[in-house]
């Protein structure tokens, strides 16, 4: 007990550990790391990365393509082609590392920023753009790629994920580390303060549900920094709910892969939930509607640029694995091609009939809603009539 509390006597109280302050960006943070920002492989006593350099080249490609898709989407928003975009810039390793650790039967519950995980699950990026262009309301079937629709309500998907995982349990799909199923719930540091998320922790723990809570701590809940969000490192929350938590360097794709894989294995074999805190940084704005220069210092950004998730893999591949420039050039060219196709596809998306939106809420449209639809259609048509006259 580091804080003295007058009047507290041992027979009255059991001992308590002092609260720990969350780390600041400039401090050294303790986490699982297998690849340093300089591209050096390092060992960890509990986690190892067992795949070969070909797999690492694959991660490099994934991250590069995803960053390119993200950059293109931001540009499209700036040009008025999307209503909004939530950039994943800086979080590629957290998403690709965890996304590539998933098996085909695992289920993903994302926030609205999981473009990298969507990519890993095989969701067409054009589908993501449809949502942000406003031509549909998320036009992918969650069952096609085991990738649930984007959830905008902060933290709500952790409950959906826990419920889904309890379903997997009741379907007897849990118990074998090889063939078992698991669920992964993505959320951010801001969501950790939501009661919903804490209730999801409780249910998952009490029912031993096969769910991995994957928190990308990107240091900012819009403009709220992490030290105003929690007094203790987020991964330590899990201990208070009776399950393990681990912090991983979220800008290290190898470590993120290894840690997530172990957490998923635990879930699949029936050992219950794990909280993974991927320690990363949101390099861009919260969304295209946000201007982070209003609330954070450029030196912070400079500090994190040195920890870039892609550069460290490139450094490793070039210096340690003998990968030559042809590979990097090919990936760049592929990324440009993907981006060009994405742009083309985005511009070619048909505008929706606005009256269609009335039909998505109910299987059988109530009379009142049909009336509203007709009223709206008449109102919209009145503009055409005026224009013609």
């Amino acid at each position, binding site marked *: 007990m580091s804080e003295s*509390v*007058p009047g507290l006597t041992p027979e009255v109280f059991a001992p308590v550990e002092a609260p720990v302050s969350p780390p600041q960006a400039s401090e050294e943070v303790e986490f699982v790391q297998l690849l340093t920002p300089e591209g050096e492989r390092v060992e960890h006593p509990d986690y190892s990365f067992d795949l070969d350099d070909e797999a690492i080249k694959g991660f490099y490609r994934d991250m590069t393509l995803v960053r390119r898709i993200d950059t293109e989407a931001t540009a499209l928003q700036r040009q008025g082609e999307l209503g909004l975009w939530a950039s994943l810039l800086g979080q590629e390793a957290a998403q690709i590392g965890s996304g590539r650790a998933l098996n085909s039967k695992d289920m993903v519950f994302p926030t609205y920023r999981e473009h990298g995980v969507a990519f890993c699950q095989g969701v067409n990026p054009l589908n993501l753009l449809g949502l942000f262009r406003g031509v549909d309301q998320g036009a992918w079937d969650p069952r096609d790629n085991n990738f649930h629709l984007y959830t905008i309500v902060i933290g709500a998907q952790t409950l959906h994920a826990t419920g889904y995982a309890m379903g997997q349990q009741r379907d007897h799909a849990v118990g074998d580390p090889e063939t078992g199923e698991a669920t992964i719930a993505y959320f951010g540091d801001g969501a950790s*303060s939501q009661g919903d998320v804490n209730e999801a922790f409780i249910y998952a*723990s*009490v029912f031993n549900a096969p769910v991995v809570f994957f928190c990308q701590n990107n240091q900012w809940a819009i403009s709220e920094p992490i030290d105003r969000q*929690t007094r203790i490192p987020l991964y330590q929350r899990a*201990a*208070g*709910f009776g399950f393990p938590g681990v912090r991983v360097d979220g800008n290290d794709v190898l470590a993120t892969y290894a840690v997530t894989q172990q957490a998923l294995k635990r879930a699949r074999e029936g050992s219950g939930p794990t909280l993974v805190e991927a320690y990363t940084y949101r390099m861009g704005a919260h969304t295209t509607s946000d201007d982070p220069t209003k609330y954070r210092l450029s030196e912070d950004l400079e500090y994190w640029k040195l920890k870039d998730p892609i550069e460290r893999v490139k450094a490793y591949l070039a210096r340690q694995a003998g990968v030559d420039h042809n590979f990097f050039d090919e990936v760049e060219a592929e990324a440009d091609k993907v981006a060009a196709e994405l742009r083309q596809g985005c511009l070619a998306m048909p505008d929706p009939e606005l009256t269609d939106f009335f039909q998505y809420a109910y299987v059988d449209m109530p009379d009142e809603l049909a009336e509203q639809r007709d009223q709206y259609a008449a109102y919209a048509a009145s503009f055409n009539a005026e224009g013609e006259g």
Partner: protein
Amino acid sequence: MTAEHLYRTVRLIRRFEERAMDFVRSGEIVGGIHPYVGQEAIAAGVCAALRPDDVITSTHRGHGHVLAKGVDPARMLAELMGRENGLNRGRGGSMHAADFGLGILGANAIVGAAGSIATGAAWAYQRQGKDVVAVSFFGDGAMNEGMLLEAFNLAVLWRVPVVFVCENNGYATTMPVRSAVAGSITGRARAFGMPAFTVDGQDPEKVLAATTAAVSRARSGRGPTFLECTTYRFDAHHTFEHRARLNYRSTEELSTGRSRDPVEIQGERLAADVRAAVDAEIEALLDAAAGVALGGAHPDPAAALEFLYASPEVNR
């Protein structure tokens, strides 16, 4: 003096609850109550550590808390009977007793909800530069309510002068704590960086000592403290159980649980004659309270909508 004060409080609560249960049986109290029997040491010990201007929030099982904070038993009994002379003119009933003058910000029937109210109130006092402390009572079941955990986080972040008192009586209605609370109760509070302690909730003096320390910590600007008071609910979750046996506790468990009775624990610390005098005093007090309550008028049904809004216009 402290020993006698604590005994008077636990005894008052015990006898108040026993008499209230009689009035439930006789039909004077409609709808039943959640008896506090067995948990009296917590209300008595906690409230004895507070100044009159400190504030509390209470629960669906709140008679003990408000009595310990100084509510007149006659007005509380009249409230339970829905009379015009009740604490809240008969509109609040068992689960919504409030008296801002006594620092009672309200009992709250919504499990865990009052934690946010106590935190908000204490935060307001802090911002006004006052050294008032808030205490929030809640049970083990509330530990699984997201909004209570949100209050923990904010209280710790902003060093709010609030003391969280968890009365762990082993059951959320019929759900045993071991099936409902993942991890541990104090571990849950520590997960937000809050100092958390387990206290013997059957001993009023231990509860008083722990709360005094926690309150002094809060008052001196060092933030919230969490106290888990281990206790046992001697009687039903709610008086409906008197009619419908739910069979979730064995007779062995009940007899072990009831063996540590706060009234006896504190009573044994007094001389026999002092104890007898206090007992007699309380019976007289409650006799008079029953008379006052039973003599109270029933509210006029036409006035049912009054007191919802400050402006009577809204009610029309």
